[in-house]
């Protein structure tokens, strides 16, 4: 039971990390809090579903197209909307939340509700791990999560584009003086965040189903993880995902599923009380030191 809970807690943590990492990356680089993140996650899932079921494309091609389309939507969102309100935090939040709301409610209005909206698992088998059966999809989620974190580290530390990302994240004005086109990099960061949301949806949705309501859940979970970890910190996202992921599963196993959400919220409150910027955040670093 204990080992089984640990196994599923790890899986839950990686799922949370995948949901949050795109949101965090966008904020960390461009400073844009993309409140359409959950909607982009659902958008990509519905696009995959449509390509798969309406056009009859193979799943992997549908998934690839949906990731590309969602990435493009992210870029367009920045070029046509966010660029005009860049730097005005409240306007950015309202604009992105509005776009997200429009996407989700449009699908609801068009009748995309029902249990048939789901995506197939990649490989349909399960393994006996630490005393419990775990399906291949969940194992793939953990593997993808690890690969993604390593890939992002390589990208941001060993490619010129990645270094430009880090440059604008550290100091946008200085990056500008060094010839980095900050608007272009910000566009890429929003689109990359959208693409990561789509990637997460492609691998997580087969465990459940697609519904507009899921978009709000994903946004809330991503926000919770990023706030605990510290907005903009990839390391923070990883640690926070594991804190919430383990808290949820252990509460579920040893207290009651009824308390799962409360314990998670309590974890957020405790962390924020002790460190208002989150575990690895820097927004209020100076105030915290003083």
């Amino acid at each position, binding site marked *: 039971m204990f080992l089984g809970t640990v196994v599923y807690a790890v899986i839950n943590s990686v799922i949370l990390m995948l949901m949050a990492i795109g949101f965090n990356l966008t904020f960390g680089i461009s400073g844009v809090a993309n409140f359409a993140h959950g909607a982009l996650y659902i958008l990509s899932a519905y696009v995959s579903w449509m390509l798969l079921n309406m056009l009859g494309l193979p799943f992997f091609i549908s998934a690839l197209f949906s990731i590309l389309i969602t990435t493009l939507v992210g870029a367009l969102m920045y070029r046509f909307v966010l660029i005009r309100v860049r730097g005005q935090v409240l306007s950015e939040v309202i604009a992105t939340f509005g776009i997200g709301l429009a996407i989700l409610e449009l699908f609801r209005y068009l009748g995309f509700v029902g249990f048939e909206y789901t995506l197939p698992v990649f490989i349909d088998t399960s393994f006996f791990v630490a005393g419990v059966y775990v399906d291949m999809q969940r194992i793939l989620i953990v593997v993808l999560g690890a690969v993604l974190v390593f890939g992002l580290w390589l990208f941001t530390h060993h490619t010129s584009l990645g270094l430009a990302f880090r440059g604008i994240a550290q100091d946008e004005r200085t990056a500008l003086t060094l010839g980095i086109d900050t608007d272009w990099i910000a566009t890429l960061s929003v689109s990359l965040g959208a693409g990561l949301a789509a990637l997460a949806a492609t691998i997580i949705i087969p465990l459940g189903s697609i519904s507009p309501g899921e978009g709000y859940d994903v946004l809330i979970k991503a926000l919770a993880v990023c706030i605990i970890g510290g907005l903009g910190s990839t390391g923070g996202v990883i640690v926070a995902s594991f804190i919430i992921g383990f808290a949820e*599963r252990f509460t579920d196993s040893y207290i009651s599923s009824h308390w799962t959400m409360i314990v998670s919220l309590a974890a957020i409150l405790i962390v924020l009380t002790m460190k208002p910027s989150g575990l690895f955040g820097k927004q209020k670093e100076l105030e915290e030191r003083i």
Partner: protein
Amino acid sequence: MNRFVVLLSIMAVTIFSFVTPGTNSYAAEPIIIAVPTSLGFLEGKESHRAVQMAVTEINAKGGVTVGGVKRPFKVAAIDIRDAARGVPVTEALLGLEKIILEKKPAAIVVGPFRSEALMAGMDIIAKYKVPMLGTIAMSPGSEKKLKGDPEKYKYVFRTCLNAVHLVKYLAGTMALINKEFGFNKVYVMHQDVAWARATAGFVKKVYFDKAGWEIVGLEAYPTGTSDFSSGLMKARAKGAQVIMPIFDMPQSGILVKQWKTMRVPAIMTGFISPLAGSGAWKIFDKKIGGAINNIFELGSAIDSAKVPQSKIFYDKYKRTYGKALQAGHGPAPSYESVYILAEAIERAGSLDPDAIVAELEKTDRNGVMGRVRYDEGHQAIFGFDPKETAVSTVFQWTKTGKRVIVFPASIAEGKIELPPGLKSLK
């Protein structure tokens, strides 16, 4: 001169159109039926469609006779979103009041999705005196409230199954499992909403405790829960032979998938909304063989050759909308409610709400769900024989993807078969 001729022609056409008598059904003012519910949820969407289907059928026959005049029905729907997580009851009530004030309906059909919204909405319904035939919200709390002040709340009827009747079906299925296989250890997993809490509590009180079953676990899951691994691990560790789920949220499909992949050696018997419709076989990759599920009302997502009206309704819905019913709760009573309302209005001979209520109380109709009558709490009476009462159904998914009705005996098509890995104790 030309302008004068044109003007004269327009005047002539206008006057002609006013003085020419038309057929009663087109000239008469339509009777508005309001459908305020969670249209974005499957049960709400398909119930709304079932209402529209019944209205189309009635209108095709000329409409409803009120005081000697044939009047058509007209449906006005509003999405009150009460089933969505995080939507406060007050917001749902605003939608309910809005449609009453703006559309001036003669009656409401389907109504609030969540019992929490229904209970609070009963005061609005009483305030505006609009008869309501609810077909989704299930908590018996509304009947208790009605019985507490019948004169005030008499406008509220429920045509669908309620939690009390669902308990009879769940208890009946458990008794059958106990009799056939000797199982008596159950793990209860339910959604943390009023009707599901009430149902789980009632089954424990009226059946499990009295019949000597051991409840090895009872878990309430917040709406939106998407991981049931801990509960399933506990069910396995505690040796549960039966898992009784009670859920109506879309995410509950994950429970079935996890039950299958985690290979929990227990039979799943209860209600999981995504498992009800024929489409579940494909959705769950043909791996739900053995699972037993409740369909709350015969006709909703399943039909029976033993009740021909259920087959006619089920088939017609598929022809009309190009897709079979998937919601195991709502559509059949919604369809029936329109006919019950039409008959009550015709008997009353007016749209006076008190007169309609008086006639609704006298309802005795053989239809899709069997025989429909209301009790003193204005709840449709459910039993086990469609000739005597309305009926619910319990079916089992076979290994080949067919749904076989196993309970009640009056409409059963086969016997319960155990899924692989689970052996009978008898």
